[in-house]
């Protein structure tokens, strides 16, 4: 029975008449149905081309030597290298006040003229910055969010100047990101951004009628574009990026949304589905939304692939992140899709009220009175926040490697665990995968990408490679 080879751990999934095999390092092979059984029952012919493919890709081994296993361990280790840095993304919610009125707002924002109790207190901001510097990461990103952080420019300046002051001692690489709707960017604020090399991350939902409808303001599109234009002039084109959120209305306009990004000088788009938080929870019938989102995603990706085939370089960033996990040997810094989860391990949120949350989504639960993911207060020690009772409880469930429905999924290495999403949508952190929209959406998207690799390889691979390497082919 034993045909002289050993099996190494791998996961598999049926895709049409093929089988997808994925190893521990995320390497995959697509083979005819029946291959897995042939491997597992030792009926593989040693030395056949299939055997060579499987051995070269660490699915089987003649006789796994310690040296081979050490190399394989290096490969797996480098996939998880994001853990070496500890928390790198530090989000500061400088204020809850906002000057827009988005239909899908996730941040429980308040009116722009509301009281300053919705702004972060300077002393607590400084405490948060001191906590950030205790992170062992050699490089950190300080991301300023809201509400609309440009409404409190003095806090933003104080934060950057304080970080620069402390950094004379800590010598970390600091990346600053200002998440702003670009409506209220003053010349003074832009000059400050230029002085400290601050990146602008903004939102643009598509063509004028759609963007304005999503924002609940008739003049938002014109204001945002004017803000983007001025930011580009002051900071450079590559210093301004935009995110797009898919409202229910957006679902009907995939091509128009891409066109609006092209018209406005962007070389890529980040497709984001609605989160089931904050006001967004009030959208009726989530199931129908996610089903329609998948159709929308496929249509938009198809359109983008067509543009690339015609010679344009335009990236869909969410797809590119997944492809990086599937096709490259490198780790990705995408905190929404990580195992162990991005929360705490890679991202932490300092809220306007001085409390520390596991993620952006966690503080939105906090806003409706649920403090399950409130890890502590900025006045507390790093040990108490990062390794306190809350984190210990969450940590038992935050890796796809050991939760049911993920541990045996072929996409385990490409996907991520999200205890916060499980809790907010299913009532417990563990979650039930077959009923999870998070799971359903990612499975469907990854299935779609593999089907492109199977059926349209010649056409899509040069495009995908160019997205990952930045090299035009």
């Amino acid at each position, binding site marked *: 029975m034993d045909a002289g080879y050993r099996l190494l751990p791998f996961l598999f999934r049926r895709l049409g008449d093929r089988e997808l095999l994925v190893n521990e*390092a995320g*390497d995959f092979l697509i083979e005819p149905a029946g291959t897995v059984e042939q491997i597992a029952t030792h009926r593989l012919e040693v*030395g056949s081309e299939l055997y*060579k*493919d499987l*051995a*070269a*890709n660490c699915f089987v081994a*003649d006789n796994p*030597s310690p*040296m*081979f296993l*050490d*190399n394989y361990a*290096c*490969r797996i280790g480098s996939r998880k290298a994001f853990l070496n840095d500890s928390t790198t993304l530090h989000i500061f919610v400088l204020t809850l006040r906002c000057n827009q009125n988005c239909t899908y707002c996730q941040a429980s924002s308040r009116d722009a003229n509301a009281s300053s109790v919705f702004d972060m207190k300077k002393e607590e901001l400084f405490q948060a910055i001191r906590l950030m510097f205790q992170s062992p990461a050699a490089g950190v990103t300080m991301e300023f969010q809201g509400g609309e952080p440009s409404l409190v420019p003095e806090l933003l300046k104080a934060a950057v100047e304080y970080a620069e002051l402390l950094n004379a001692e800590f010598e970390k690489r600091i990346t600053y990101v200002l998440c702003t709707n670009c409506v209220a960017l003053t010349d003074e604020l832009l000059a400050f951004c230029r002085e400290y090399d601050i990146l602008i991350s903004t939102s643009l939902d598509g063509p004028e009628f759609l963007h304005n409808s999503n924002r609940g303001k008739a003049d938002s599109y014109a204001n945002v574009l004017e803000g983007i234009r001025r930011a580009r002039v002051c900071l450079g084109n590559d210093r301004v990026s935009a995110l797009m959120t898919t409202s229910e209305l957006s679902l009907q306009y995939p091509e128009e949304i891409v066109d609006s990004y092209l018209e406005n000088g962007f070389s890529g788009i980040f497709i984001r589905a609605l989160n089931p938080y904050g006001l967004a929870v009030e959208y009726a019938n989530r199931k129908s939304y996610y089903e329609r989102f998948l159709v929308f995603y496929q249509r938009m990706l198809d359109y983008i692939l067509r543009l690339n085939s015609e010679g344009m370089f335009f990236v869909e960033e969410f797809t590119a992140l997944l492809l990086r996990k599937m096709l*490259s*040997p*490198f780790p990705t810094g995408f905190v929404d899709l990580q195992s162990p989860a991005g929360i705490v391990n890679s991202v932490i949120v300092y809220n306007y009220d001085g409390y520390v949350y596991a993620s952006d989504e966690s503080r939105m639960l906090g806003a409706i009175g649920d403090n399950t993911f409130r890890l502590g207060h900025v006045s507390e020690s790093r040990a108490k926040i990062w390794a306190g009772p809350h984190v210990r409880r969450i940590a038992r469930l935050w890796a796809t490697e050991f939760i049911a429905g993920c541990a045996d999924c072929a996409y385990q290495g490409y996907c991520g665990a999200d205890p916060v999403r499980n809790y907010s949508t299913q009532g417990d952190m563990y979650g039930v995968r077959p009923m999870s929209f998070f799971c359903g959406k990612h499975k469907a998207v990854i299935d779609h990408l593999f089907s492109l690799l199977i059926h349209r390889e010649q056409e899509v691979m*040069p495009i995908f*490679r*160019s997205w*990952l*390497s*930045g*090299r035009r*082919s």
Partner: protein
Amino acid sequence: MNCDHLFSPTSNDNTLFVTAQCNNRCIMCCQPPDRRDDIEMRYRRNLSLLENAPKELRELGINGGEPTLLGDRLFQLLEAVHELLPSTGIHLLSNGRAFSDFSYAKKLHSVASENLLLGIPLHSDYSGDHDEVTRIPGSFDETMRGLYHLGEFGIRVELRVLITRYNYRRLRKISDFLYRHLPFVDFVAFMGMEVTGWAVRHMDQLWIDPVDFREYLEDAVLTLSGWGMDCCVYNIPHCLLSESLHPYACQSISDWKTEFSADCDSCRKRKACCGLFRTSRKQSRALAPFLA
């Protein structure tokens, strides 16, 4: 390679031949190994060659045999090169197996400078095929482990894929393997074969006319390059390559080994072409000049 010719700044091949011994037994070896202990004798001779070498030497090769069989003597030799020829690039050819010993790799790191480039061959993505070529079971795992250690120390590596009848059908798979397993090497060289030494004896097993692997090679190079890894093609004349690979083709053949056929005189690509191995017992059937 010939150890007796004197160093010349105008030559592209100035080499220290450090030993004829080797711990692999590659079936296509163009410099079949010898078992005699020649290390001390050659070490002394190479030191005196170095002392008389012109300072403006652009590149110095170190090869054998297997230079790591010198043990710590190799590091003393490298230190002597750094001292006497501080601005000369060093191209060390090795099978890399010795670096599977972490402490040996670490010692190399302690004497290595940016000038050092290791040329290390890998014959397949499948260990069995590689070991069949080297005729040493386990050599693939050792070379791979060595490459990982060199990567850990940031030592520059030229990964060499010699194209033979054994591996030409898997060239694309080898590219995929290199991107996933060895993305840290500096560049990958796909190499045409010189039929000399043991390769003559094993010609039937080894020889594949470059014109017959043209498409395989094109796919392998363009794929790997598409992933952002630097690639080049050695020892294959332009007329045997797909047009798309011409930018990757290098003048890789040592000047004293290079020849051109009579037909090459009329070829407009001759200036950029590597030409042919004068020393090879087999040439392609498909050589054809690009006429103006």
